[in-house]
C-alpha cells in the first residue's frame, strides 16, 4: 500500500531529490527485480525481506476499544528501501529502514518515526521465527508458533508521549490480493506482490500521557513488495481496510491521477478467507466531506461503493486529525462505517502534503 512513503524513504528528506527518486521509481527498476505474474509464495521465507526488490513493508493497523467503550486505533509499520539490490554487513549495507507508529484516540493523534540502516542490527526482519524490528519497536512471533509464522505476534512501539504493547492472534488464513498476490497498480501494468493477514484479534495495553489503558479489538497486517509500483502520472492514493460486523472484509484503494482520473482496485474477503479481486472501476470511492488537517484540506469522510456486492457505505473518522507528522506526512486513522454494511476500519490517504 503506502508506496509514496517507501519511495520517500529512499530519497529521504530533500524534496528535489524526492521528485527525482519518485521519477526513478515510476519509470525504471534499475537493476532491481520486478514481480512477475504468476507469483509463487514460499512461507515463512516470504514473510522476511526481499532485498532484491526496491521497496517492501510490514504494515499493521488495529481498531481497538477500551472497557469504557472508547475507541482507539493503532498503526505499526516497518518500511524497507534498498539503495542497491543486495544485502551486506556493516555500515555500508545498502538497505534503509523506516518505522512509523501511530496511536489515535477520539481527542488526539500521536505519531513517531524511526530510521535505521541495515547491516548493523539496528533494524531488520527475520522470517523464522518471525521478527521485525527497528530500535525497540518490534513485531515478533509469540512462542510457541503453530501454523503460519505470523499467526501469533507481539507488537510494541514507543513515541515521545505514547507507547503500546499488543498481543495479536490470527483466526483466519493469509489472503492474497489481485491475481493470487499479483496486485496491479496502474493501467500501464505496474504491480506489486501483496498479501494480508486481516483476521487478528487483539488484546493489550496502550499508554497515553494520562496512563495505561487496556484494550481489545482486531487488526490487519499488509505485506507488500515491489520495485516500480507507481505510474508516473499517479499523485497519491486513498486506501481503506474495512471489517464489517458480519465478518466479511474489504480492501480497496483508489490511485489519484494527475488528470483527475482514478485507478481503483478491491479485494472482497469472506469471513472464511475466500477472496474475490475486483479490477479497475468496480470500486467507487467518493469524498464527502473535507477537514482542515495540519494546514491542508483532506477528505476525511468517504462514500465507498462496490455495486457487485451491494455495498454502499459512508465512513467517518474516529479523529479527523489523524495526521502522521513524519518525514513524509500523510493521514492514517481508524474509521466507523455506516450504510449497507456497518463496521470499523482504517483509512489511509497519501499525497496531500
Amino acid at each position, binding site marked *: 500500500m503506502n508506496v509514496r512513503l517507501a519511495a520517500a524513504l529512499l530519497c*529521504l528528506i530533500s524534496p528535489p531529490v524526492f521528485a527525482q527518486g519518485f521519477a526513478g521509481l515510476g519509470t525504471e527498476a534499475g537493476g532491481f527485480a520486478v514481480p512477475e505474474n504468476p507469483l509463487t509464495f514460499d512461507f515463512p521465507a516470504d514473510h522476511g525481506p526481499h532485498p532484491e526488490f526496491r521497496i517492501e513493508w510490514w504494515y499493521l493497523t488495529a481498531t481497538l476499544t477500551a472497557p469504557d467503550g472508547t475507541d482507539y486505533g493503532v498503526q505499526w509499520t516497518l518500511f524497507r528501501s534498498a539503495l542497491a539490490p543486495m544485502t551486506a554487513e556493516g555500515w555500508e549495507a545498502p538497505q534503509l529502514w523506516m518505522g512509523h507508529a501511530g496511536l489515535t484516540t477520539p481527542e488526539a493523534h500521536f505519531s513517531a518515526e524511526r530510521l535505521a540502516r541495515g547491516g548493523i542490527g539496528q533494524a531488520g526482519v527475520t522470517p523464522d521465527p518471525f521478527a521485525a524490528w527497528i530500535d525497540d519497536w518490534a513485531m515478533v512471533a509469540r512462542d510457541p508458533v503453530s501454523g503460519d509464522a505470523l499467526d501469533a505476534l507481539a507488537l510494541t512501539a*514507543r513515541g515521545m508521549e505514547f507507547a503500546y504493547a499488543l498481543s495479536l492472534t490470527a483466526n483466519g488464513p493469509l489472503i492474497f490480493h489481485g491475481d493470487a498476490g499479483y496486485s496491479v497498480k496502474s493501467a500501464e501494468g505496474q504491480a506489486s506482490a501483496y498479501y494480508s493477514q486481516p483476521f487478528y484479534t487483539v488484546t493489550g495495553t496502550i499508554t497515553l500521557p494520562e496512563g495505561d489503558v487496556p484494550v481489545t479489538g482486531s487488526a490487519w497486517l499488509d505485506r507488500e513488495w515491489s520495485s516500480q509500483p507507481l505510474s508516473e502520472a499517479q499523485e497519491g492514493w486513498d486506501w481503506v481496510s474495512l471489517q464489517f460486523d458480519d465478518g466479511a472484509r474489504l480492501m480497496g484503494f483508489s490511485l489519484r491521477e494527475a488528470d483527475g482520473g482514478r485507478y481503483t482496485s478491491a479485494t472482497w474477503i469472506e469471513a472464511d478467507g475466500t477472496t474475490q479481486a475486483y479490477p479497475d472501476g468496480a470500486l467507487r470511492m467518493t469524498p464527502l466531506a473535507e477537514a482542515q488537517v495540519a494546514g491542508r484540506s483532506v477528505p476525511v469522510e468517504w462514500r465507498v461503493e462496490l455495486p457487485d456486492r451491494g455495498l454502499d457505505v459512508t465512513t467517518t473518522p474516529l479523529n479527523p486529525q489523524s495526521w502522521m507528522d513524519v518525514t513524509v506526512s500523510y493521514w492514517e486513522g481508524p474509521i466507523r462505517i455506516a450504510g449497507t454494511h456497518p463496521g470499523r476500519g482504517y483509512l489511509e490517504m497519501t499525497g496531500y502534503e
Partner: protein
Amino acid sequence: MVYTAVLTLLSHWRRHPGQLLTLVAGLALATALWSGVQAINAEARASYAEAAATLGQDQLSRLSRADGRPVPLADYIALRRAGYLVSPVISGELRDGPARLRLLGIDPLTAPPQTGAPALEGEALDLAAFFTAPGLLLMTDETAAGALPPDLPPIVLRDTVPPGAAITDIGTAARLLGQADPNYLLVAADQPAGLPPLDEARDLRLQGPSTTADIGSLTDSFHLNLTAFGLLSFAVGLFIVHAAIGLAFEQRRATVRTLRALGLPLRTTLVAFGLELAGLALFSGALGLVLGYAIAAALMPGVAGTLRGLYGASIPGTLSFDPVWALSAIGMTLAGAGLAGLQALRRAAQMPILAPANPRAWAQASARSMRMQALAAGTLLAVGVGFAVVGGSLEAGFATLAALLLGAALILPATLGLILRLASRSARGALSEWIFADTRQQLPGLSLALMALLLALAANIGVSTMVGSFRETFTGWLDQRLAPELYLSIADPGEAESLLAFVRPRAEAVLPIVSTEIPLAGRPGEVFGQVDHATYRDHWPLLAAAPGAWDRVADGEALLINEQLARFAGLTLGDVLEITPDLSLPIAGVYSDYGNPTAQASVTLTRFTETFPDVPVTRFALRVPPEDAPALASALRDDYGLPPDGVVNQAQIKRFSLSVFEQTFSITGALNVLTLGVAAFALLTSLLTLATLRLPQLAPVWALGLTRARLARIEVVRSLILGALTFALALPVGLMLAWVLLAIVNVEAFGWRLPMTLFPIDWLRLFALAMLAAALAAALPALRLARLSPTTLLKVFAHER
C-alpha cells in the same frame, strides 16, 4: 544659522588641508587598528561557535567510553534496541604528509535534529551517492582548495562545515578510517517516554553539551592579547585626534570669537563644532573600516595558523564582513572623536568673547592637571602592584598590565618635567638653558604623544622580551626533549614486528612511543607509555622531582605529569592522579612541556599496555649516532619500504615546532610595529600643532640672533631628547610588562612559566627605532621652520595675534 556656522568652520580646512589630513588619518588609523583586531577576534569567535555547534555539540550530550576508546558497535545497537535515541559518530584524521583532513562520519538516519547535519539541508544532494560507496565528502571550498590526502571520495561543497574537516556518511568514514566502532554517540535532547535515565543504562560516560567549547577558553588569552593591542592602538590613535582637534580649535579661536561677536549663540557654535566633528568622524571611521578590514584580511592567515598550531583550533584563514562589527567600530570612532573633542568644545564654551589668545594660560592649566595626573598614576601603579600580588587569574594578569601601562603613561609628563628641570639646572650656556626650559614648557602639548610613544615602546619591549624568553626556553627545551635522532610511524600495527626486526640491529636503542587521549583531572588530556631509558632520564627536563623519580616510574609505582596539568589541577609531587579507575599512581615528577595546550601524564610502557591493551604501538623513536641518522632514514625508506612520511628526523620536527612558534608571534610583531608607527605619527601631529602655536616664542629668539636653520636643528634635538627620555622610562615599564606576561599571564593562559631573559641588543635596536621615529616626527616641522620666510616671523612682532 547652524548651516552657516558649520560652513564657516569648515572653510578652515580648505586653507589647512594638511591638518585635515592629519585629523582624518588619526581617526582612520585608530579605527583601522581597533576594528581590524576586532574583526579577527569576531571571525575566530564565530568559527569557535560554529565548531562548537558542529554536530550540535553545543546542545547535545554525548556518550563515550571512560577510557576514551571507541564505543563498540554492539553497545550502540543495544542502546538503540533499548529505545534510546542516540546517534553514532566516527571521527578521525586522514593524513598524508602535511596534508590532513578531519573526518566526521555521521548517521543522518539517527542524527538528532540539532545535529544540523548539513548533508540533508540546502541544495539537493545525491543521497544514494552519499550513503553508498565511494560516498561523498562535504567540506568548505577553502578546505577543498587546501592540501588534502589522496584518493578521497567525490567532494561536495558546503560552507557550514568546520574548516579542515569533512562531513560524510558514517559508512564512508568507517571505510576511510578503517574503524567500525563509533567514537562517541550523540544523545537526542528528548528521549521517549518511560525509559530509565541514560546514565544508568550503560557504563558509558555521559558528557553534557559543551557550550562554546573548551577551545574558546583555551584561546581566550590569545584574543585578550589582540584586544589589548587593539585598544592600545585605538588609544594612540585618539592621541593623534586629540592633537589635531586641539590645533584646529586653536587656529579657529579668532573665527569663533568673531562669529560670536556677530551674534551667533554659544549653543549654535557648539552644535556647529559637534556636527563638524561628527561628520569628520563618520568619514574617517568609514575610511578606517576599509583599512581595518584590509589589515585583518592580511593578518588573518597568520592568526589562523597560530590558532591551529598552538591550540589546535581551526578557523578559516579568510574574513567575512559583519555589519555589526562595522557599526560598533564606527560607534567607537564617534565616541573616541567625541572624547578627543570634548576639551576643545569645553574651551570654546568657556571662552569669553573678548578674551585675548593666551596659550600660556593653557599651559598653566596643564601644569595643574599634570599634578592630578601624577596622582592618578601613583594610584594606578599601586593598584597594578596589588593585582600582581593577589594575582591568580588571567583577568588579574591583564588588570596588572593595564594599570601598570596606564600608570606609567600618566606619570610620564611629570617625570619628564622633573628630569628636564634637573637638566636645565646643570645646563651651561644660554642656548641649552633655553632649550631645556622651552622643552619643559612644551611638555603639556606633547605629553599625549609622548604617552603614546611610551605605551608603544613599553609594549614593544615587554612583548619582545616575552617572545625572546619564550623562544630561548623553547628552543633549549626542544633540543633537550627531542633527543632521539629518528622518529618512525607505521600505519598498520601488524607491521611493528618486522620493522623492529629491521631497525634493532641498526640502532642503539628503539623506544616505542604510545599514547591515548583521555581526560585528565577533567580536562582533555593524553597518557603516554614509555620504556625506561637514558634518553628520558638524561633529557627530560623535570621542573620538580621526588627522590628517585625515574626509578619509581620505571618500577610502575609512579607517574610523571606535565607542568600544565600540575598547574591547573593544583597537583604537586606525591599527589595521586587517577587516569582510569584501574590506574591511579602518585606523581613523582613534573616536566616542562611548552607549546602543548593539553594535560599529559606519562607512565611506564608496562603500566600503559596493562591499562590500554588495545592501543597499538605505531610510533618509535630511534637512538643512533647522529652522523648515521640520514643513512638509516634512507635505508628505512629504500630497503625496508617505509613511506616517506613514516620516517621523520629530529631536525624536521624542530623546524616544524619552531615555525609554529614563529607564526604564533608574527602577528604580535606586526601589531607592535603598527603601534609604534601610530605613536610616531601622534608625535608628528603634536609637533606640527605646536609648531604653529610656538612661533611667538621662537620669533624673539630668532630676532636675538639665531638662524632659522639652527632653530630647526634645535627642534630635532629636542624631539630626540624627549624620545630618548621616554625610551629610558619605557624600558623599566616594558620589563615589568614582560615579567607580568611571563609570570602571570602565561601561567594562566598556557599553564607554563618561563624564565625571563634580557635582550639588550633588542633594546638598542628599539632605541634606534624610537630615535628614528622622534627624528622623523620632528623632521617635517623642523624643515618647515628652516624654510619659514622671515615675514612670517616678523608678523609676530608686527601684528597683534
